[in-house]
């Protein structure tokens, strides 16, 4: 469960967002510049908002009124960036184990499980520059999961991938959702990604929450929009 409220003013965007969700996979959906990635950065601890409160599963990560701001390194948030951000000087295996070493944690998500789920076995000794876009994203997802996160943040994980790689990574993400019960926040501007992965959708526009709907409502609205029965869709 996530409870989030935050305010932050950038030079070109004023963010004032609040939502609460019990969904296992929550999508933040909206156009570029809506403030989606800023919300993810605030959850991860990479952006310190001017004010706000963020709690996941009841654990407070940020509360500006109480002066609480857990550093990013202690939040246990797995973040899959749009560009992967694999460490170029480390092998795939070293990238995957980076967060595991840092937290020295042990639970049911281990290297063997991730390698099997994401089919990374043949890539373990390669360097990131020798991977395709889809392979890089799979490694980035595996690396984030191996840091034993309380929440997984996916920032447009399929953007920039060609159609085949996109379908492939989407299939892996579906499989992970079924096999691993990790609370996930997905940022995307692609409705099909929302439909494939999310349980609930928060629509953002210009730094504000426009609407929060279940995935069934989201699909129904898009169907109605396609049929011409409503003017705007989520």
């Amino acid at each position, binding site marked *: 469960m996530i409870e989030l409220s935050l305010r932050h003013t950038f030079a070109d965007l004023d963010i004032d967002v609040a939502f609460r969700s019990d969904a296992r996979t929550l999508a933040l959906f909206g156009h570029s510049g809506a403030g989606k990635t800023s919300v993810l950065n605030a959850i*991860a*601890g*990479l952006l310190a908002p001017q004010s706000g409160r963020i709690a996941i599963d009841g654990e407070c990560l940020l509360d500006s009124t109480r002066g609480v701001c857990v*550093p*990013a*390194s*202690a*939040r*246990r*948030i*797995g*973040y899959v*960036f749009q*560009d992967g*951000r694999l*460490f*170029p*000087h480390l092998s795939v295996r070293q990238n995957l184990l*980076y*967060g595991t070493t*840092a*937290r020295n944690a042990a639970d049911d998500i281990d290297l063997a499980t991730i390698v099997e789920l994401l089919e990374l076995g043949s890539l373990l000794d*390669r*360097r990131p520059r*020798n991977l395709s876009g889809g392979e890089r994203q799979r490694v980035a997802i595996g*690396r*984030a999961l191996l*840091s034993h996160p309380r929440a997984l943040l996916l920032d447009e994980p399929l953007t920039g991938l060609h159609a085949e790689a996109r379908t492939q990574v989407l299939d892996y993400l579906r499989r992970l959702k079924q096999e691993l019960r990790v609370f996930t926040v997905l940022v995307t501007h692609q409705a099909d990604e929302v439909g494939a992965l999310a349980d609930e959708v928060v629509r953002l526009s210009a730094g504000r929450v426009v609407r929060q709907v279940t995935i069934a409502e989201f699909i129904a609205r898009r169907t109605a929009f396609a049929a011409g029965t409503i003017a705007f869709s989520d």
Partner: protein
Amino acid sequence: MGALTHDEWQALALSLRVGLLSVACALPFALALAWLLSRKRFPGRVLIEALMFLPLILPPVVTGYALLALFGRHGAFGEALAGIGIVVAFRWTGAVIAAAVMGFPLLVMSIRVAFDNVDRRLEAAAETLGARAWRRFTTITLPLSLRGIAAGCVLAFARAFGEFGATISFVSNIPGETRTLPIAIYELLNTPGGMPGVRRLAIVSLVVAFASSAAATVIAGGAPWRNRFDD
């Protein structure tokens, strides 16, 4: 022209020792200062940068005099060091200090550029994976800056190897103790019949300088064989 004489070998060996040790001594301080200048904004930053550049701008003799004033027997640090039995003025260890001070700005500048060129987003990614500041530095920033650090070390070594003014002011010209290669050349220039020795040592200097420059260029630009063996 012939081979190097015993005294010339001694001067060459001393210069190599002073050059290597000065880089080794300056490196930890240079890494810390370069990181501070690259990653932090703080009051007094401009002052620190200006102070750091002083050895490049000041006449080296003035730097040598300043070192003598600080580390001489009656200097602010020299007296304290002498109290625990450490004397650096007029010793080869003083030559190391002089060379380290003179090469320091080059070292810091190279390392700072290397740190600036590390993608900060990778450090942020490491942070989300649980890495605190020291681990991010040692596992991400430092390895990705190695080429720049190595190039800076080579440049600082070359600067230290050729150091003359600050060294002769601070530790004088004592054969076998502080007579480095440039000082030996100066000595031979003022000695009747010393020209063959000057030529020999000048050639040695040229070789070391060229090798350092080539090494710095290759390291900074990436070795041409690198891609063949990676992965």
